[in-house]
């Protein structure tokens, strides 16, 4: 009985020391590590975002999970099954990065083709294909060959084929890439819909707002290593916050402002408005100076660090740590 309960509570995705190295160079003697010792758990029903800059190892992780490439060491289990178990795929939907499908087929035909690998009746298959086309907004373009599709439309086909068989676990590699704002919104809605239906979703992205909006937890990969896992708000909070002050100055004040208000040199001017960024600790001092100079405060807001800044923060920390290890080694 205990075993059954444990099985039911098994994580949707479980990796242990997953490592991928690619040999290169003369006789393949050199090795490039794309992913190093990834140990991760994604719980059932969770929306998990895999964040990281380009080339960080996100796609490598996803391809390892999908058994498209094989680990150098370590192992992974999806829905309690090892990744080399082909039956595992019955419960998993996958959207590849920048998906491309048979351009001689129509969207309806490509979905019908993929549906044939599941145990659907012909009538069920046809009904699902139509339902999916409608879901991704392609019901009118379903009979056009994919060679005439835009990148965004192909992304929608990719999403449709990923959820065609009502999978328990959906893995999406950069699902928002190549989409216009409307398309991104629609994809976000589909992900939220899947979340409400109790599905587990893992998706990779380098766009932090997407992750903040959708994810229960995110994992950040930099340089092939998992640098941190947590709720998006925690992740963003790791980097130091800055404050943004928007203000304006009366024209009489501007003339003598350079001497009376040293802060002005650090501000950027757009029309009549000035924008100043200060550290959180320096906020009140800056506001005091502006008040004394007769500035009119328009707004004060917290500046959340961009993902790029956060990555740079992690990369810098990673390099500093590596340098420290090297020095202590000497």
């Amino acid at each position, binding site marked *: 009985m205990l075993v059954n309960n444990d099985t039911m509570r098994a994580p949707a995705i479980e990796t242990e020391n997953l490592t991928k190295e690619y040999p290169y160079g003369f006789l393949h003697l050199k090795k490039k590590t794309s992913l190093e010792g990834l140990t991760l758990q994604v719980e059932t029903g969770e929306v998990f975002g895999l964040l990281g800059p380009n080339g960080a190892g996100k796609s490598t992780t996803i391809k390892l999970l999908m058994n498209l490439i094989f680990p150098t060491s370590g192992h992974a289990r999806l829905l309690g099954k090892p990744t080399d178990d*082909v039956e595992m795929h019955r419960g998993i939907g996958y959207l*590849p990065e920048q998906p491309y499908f*048979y351009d001689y*087929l129509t969207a309806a035909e490509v979905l019908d083709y*993929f549906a044939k690998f*599941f145990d659907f009746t012909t009538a069920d298959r046809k009904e699902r294909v139509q339902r999916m086309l409608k879901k991704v907004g392609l019901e009118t373009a379903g009979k056009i060959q994919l060679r005439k599709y835009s990148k965004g439309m192909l992304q929608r086909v990719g999403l449709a084929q990923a959820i065609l068989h009502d999978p328990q676990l959906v893995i999406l590699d950069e699902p928002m890439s190549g989409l216009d704002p409307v398309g991104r919104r629609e994809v976000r809605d589909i992900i939220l819909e899947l979340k409400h239906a109790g599905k587990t979703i893992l998706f990779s992205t380098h766009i932090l707002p997407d992750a903040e909006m959708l994810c229960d937890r995110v994992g950040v990969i930099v340089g092939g290593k998992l640098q941190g896992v947590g709720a998006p708000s925690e992740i963003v909070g790791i980097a130091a916050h800055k404050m943004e002050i928007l203000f304006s100055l009366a024209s009489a004040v501007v003339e003598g402002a350079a001497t009376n208000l040293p802060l002005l040199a650090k501000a950027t001017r757009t029309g009549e408005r000035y924008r100043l960024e200060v550290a959180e600790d320096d906020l009140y001092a800056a506001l005091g100076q502006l008040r004394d100079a007769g500035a009119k405060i328009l707004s004060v807001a917290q500046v959340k660090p961009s993902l790029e800044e956060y990555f740079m923060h992690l990369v810098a920390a990673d390099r500093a740590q590596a340098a420290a290890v090297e020095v202590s080694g000497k």
Partner: protein
Amino acid sequence: MKNIAAVALNTFREAVRDRVMYNLVFFALLMMGAAILVGQISIGIEEIVIVSLGLSAISFIGLLMAVFIGVGLVSKEMDKRTIYALLAKPVRRWEFLVGKFAGLVFTLAVNTTAMAAGLFLALFYVRHSLQPSDLGLLVAVYFILLKLAIVVALALLFSCSTTSLLSILYSAGLYIAGSFVQQMRTLRSDLAGPTTAAIMRWLSYLLPNFENFSVTGSVAHGVAIPRALILQNTLYAALYCAVVLTGAAIIFSRRNLK
């Protein structure tokens, strides 16, 4: 089996939509031209010329299709990344491979059958009748198809392990070498040296023996083809394809799809 059939059907559909079958127009024009020309310049050997030319054209066109499409069966799916979404479905890699093989062999069968029908029409045009001995033509066409199946399997094997250009060269090279198997087996050691002759003899058993499939001369002259040869060639082709496809599946199932 269901998965293999789905992949095979899609491969056939791809060939049809990529206008691969347009080669039939070329074949039809060739046969029409030959039939008209042969009727005017050759006396008494019209059917020999038509049969020889027709079977050679069927074999050559089929060979071009088998090598060039065969090499692209897997590599095209990898280059265009269409394979990612497919292998994310409950499909085993060997099923994908066998489905691709079956799809192209089916395409070749349809194409070869259409060309054979054209050949019969040309034969009827020059002779104004068909004879029971013409059934030998069907056997010759069947042998060509068996030969093409082996070429497709080899092209698949190479495309699983190397670049498209090298796969084309290897497949075509093996086809040419396989057409001279008897000469390799009977190479005289006093001329080539005992070591070379021994290597050639061993090699000749590894290479596909395409000479057994070449019955154009016999058919053109109305010589009956023994049933034992039909059985032997069928079993040989089936076994050779099975071995080569097994090798391809082993290589492909270990390949990282980067």
